[in-house]
């Protein structure tokens, strides 16, 4: 009966949206390195740890008052709650139960509850003996009155910072990654200290005319000398002792250099990972990111424009010089091959990316990246550069939405410049938004005052706008003249006065940005009015 109840409860937890959501929330808060919530929580906890340590120092020679005591207890309560929450989210007990229950059902073997309890306990103990959990516990325990004798462990609150400060975490990771080298160094160091202390004790014991009275003093002297600190409280007097001192000083210099080089090389190795991890973490948090594959001349122009418009983007390139240039400009950069699935996935192609731009100077690479991107995300917009006309169709076949040929566009621009320089410069000015006049689209939203209105009844002049045309897919407009096909839509140039606007139509207007914004504002306001068309 009890077993069935546990299995039922496990199934309940497995299917409960509220439970899953709550657990996910606390996971994001405490453990998820890509969560913004965790970043805020870490800052909050660093503040609490620092305050609690300051209170601790204050307590040494002063009596704390009731408010301070309340504050201290509140901090401890938060530490306890945090510890318990981490204990809870460390694993999913119900999954262990269900996994074994389903296995027992499938194989028709008895379901052992004691085995499950053992497994759950093992998991929880595994958490409790993990270094960071031990630090957490030691930071809390001394606050319990009967365990006041453990006050010294309050210093472990400072070690809690390991959890929240990334650079400390990184340092511990570096030490871990170089444990073999550090272990070798430690053995060698221990060996040297042993030899040094024995030697100095033999030469400098009181019977030989020295100051070193016991082996502890000898070890102390060896450590101080080897570290090149040299306090001078114990000095060798005999020639033999001095020789040992000189040998230890030189060896100490070597050991320090060796230690420094281990740490520096570990940092250098880790630097690339650090940069990429930071980039990936940042990418997780940004919505509608644009992936630029290739940071050559075209890629740079695009990045500059996107930066100007504050549109988030990430650059992927294998070229070291391009990597340096992108980093110099402080752009998000992934130094990798953009045609690899993993690289594009890291860049967010399946989640938060809105477009992929293939801008390398190599058509083969562009086709391959386009194909990879299309496979990973069938809905994403892909714009690709092409360098040879014969490859345009291949890029469309690979899944590109738009293909741009630099020399074709340059050719068109030159031809247009020769034919009509003034008109060309005017349009170029509008496109580049250099003349304060912009061409924008304004959507006819359902319920706005212009939905169902005739063009003649709309006051464009008030916002100093000029209507160029209407983009629409609505079949009601097909009777109108001046219709031009436009990528699955129709563009109605200079629509007649009786042209009736439908929901979803896009007005193409020319005017100042302030006029466009004002017109949009009026439309939004009209949708909020009581009795607005719905």
């Amino acid at each position, binding site marked *: 009966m009890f077993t069935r109840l546990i299995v039922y409860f496990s199934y309940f937890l497995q299917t409960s949206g509220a439970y899953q959501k709550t657990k996910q929330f606390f996971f994001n808060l405490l453990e998820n390195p890509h969560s913004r919530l965790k970043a805020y929580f870490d800052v909050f906890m660093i503040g609490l740890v620092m305050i609690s340590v300051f209170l601790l120092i204050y307590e040494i020679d002063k009596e704390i008052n009731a408010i301070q005591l309340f504050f201290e207890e509140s901090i401890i309560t938060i530490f306890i709650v945090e510890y318990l929450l981490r204990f809870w989210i460390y694993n999913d007990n119900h999954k262990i139960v269900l996994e074994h229950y389903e296995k027992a059902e499938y194989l028709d073997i008895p379901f052992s509850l004691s085995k499950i309890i053992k497994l759950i306990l093992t998991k929880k103990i595994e958490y409790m003996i993990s270094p960071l959990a031990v630090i957490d516990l030691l930071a809390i325990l001394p606050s319990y009155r009967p365990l006041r004798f453990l006050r010294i462990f309050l210093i472990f609150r400072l070690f809690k910072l390991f959890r929240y400060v990334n650079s400390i975490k990184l340092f511990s990771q570096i030490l871990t990654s170089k444990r073999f080298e550090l272990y070798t160094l430690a053995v060698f160091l221990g060996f040297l200290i042993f030899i040094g202390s024995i030697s100095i004790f033999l030469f400098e014991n009181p019977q030989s005319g020295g100051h070193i009275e016991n082996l502890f003093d000898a070890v102390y002297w060896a450590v101080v000398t080897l570290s090149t600190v040299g306090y001078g409280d114990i000095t060798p007097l005999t020639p033999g002792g001095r020789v040992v001192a000189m040998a230890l000083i030189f060896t100490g210099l070597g050991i320090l250099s060796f230690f420094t080089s281990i740490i520096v090389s570990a940092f250098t190795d880790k630097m690339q990972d650090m940069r990429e991890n930071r980039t990936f973490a940042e990418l997780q948090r940004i919505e509608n990111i644009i992936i630029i594959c290739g940071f050559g001349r075209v890629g740079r122009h695009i990045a500059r424009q996107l930066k100007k418009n504050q549109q988030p983007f990430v650059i992927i390139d294998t070229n070291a010089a391009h990597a340096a240039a992108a980093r110099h400009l402080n752009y998000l950069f992934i130094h990798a091959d953009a045609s690899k699935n993993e690289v594009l996935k890291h860049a967010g192609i399946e989640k938060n990316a809105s477009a992929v731009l293939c801008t390398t100077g190599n058509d083969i690479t562009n086709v391959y990246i386009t194909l990879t991107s299309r496979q990973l995300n069938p809905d994403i917009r892909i714009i690709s*550069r092409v360098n040879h006309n014969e490859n345009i169709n291949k890029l469309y076949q690979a899944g590109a939405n738009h293909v741009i040929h630099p*020399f074709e566009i340059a050719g068109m*621009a030159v031809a247009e*410049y020769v034919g009509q320089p003034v008109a060309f410069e005017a349009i170029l000015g509008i496109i580049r938004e250099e003349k304060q006049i912009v*061409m924008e689209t304004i959507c006819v939203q359902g319920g706005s005052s212009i939905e169902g209105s005739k063009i003649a009844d709309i006051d464009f002049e008030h916002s*100093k706008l*000029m209507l160029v045309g209407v*983009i629409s897919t609505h079949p009601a407009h097909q009777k109108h003249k001046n219709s031009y096909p436009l990528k699955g839509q129709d563009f109605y*140039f200079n629509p007649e006065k009786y042209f009736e606007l439908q929901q979803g139509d896009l007005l193409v207007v020319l005017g100042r940005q302030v006029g466009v914004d004002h017109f949009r504002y009026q439309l939004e306001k009209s949708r909020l009015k009581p009795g607005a068309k719905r």
Partner: protein
Amino acid sequence: MKRIAVFGSSGMALEVISRLDPETCSAVYIGQNQAEVAAFRDKGLKAEVGDFRIDDELKAAGIGSCIDYLFCFFAADSDNVFLTISARALDNKLTIIALIDDPDSAEKLLAAGANKIIDPYEICGRKTHEILTKPEITNILDQTVFRRHDLNIAQLEIANGSWLEKRKISSLKLNEKHDLILIGIVDKASVDDLHFAIEEQEKYLDAGDILVVMGPTRAIRAFKERAALTSELNHQA
């Protein structure tokens, strides 16, 4: 008729020459070898062999005499600079359009005497950005600027005695009467400054002003013909 000489990359030259209006432009490609020239001639285009480093050969190509426009499309910026300097020395009024590979060369080409610099990579970058941020607008402007459809933009200079002279912009009502959108006006007094029509409704037009209009080809042609008429003839029409 605008007479154009094109030097440099045959691919780029072909892109441009194929887009020029044959009724108003006559282009000749000056290739460096017989094979390049033959490829152009096979396509029915005019082509000659010539060495841009020799002034006499530039003169033979018409620079300094009958050529109005010079296109410098060499892959190396140094070649374009050299051709620009040589051509400018031969003809002070020549309009020189040069391609650049390195953005830093733009100033050098301008200093050498080029009138217009085209950076294909910059244009490509901008185009990509436009497609990304304003896809509908980019498509419309593609139709008009690059004549991919019947919709065009055009410029029209107001001739002396035209019925457009002394007319107020707001009274033109080109969208209602001529199926055109008046985008802007270049005042003859300030040639480089384009005034957008929406902000200049009270302005009176003068002979020499340039109108920039957008509309279907037939409407543009009809308007150009009508613009040449005097006030009296316009009334009769």
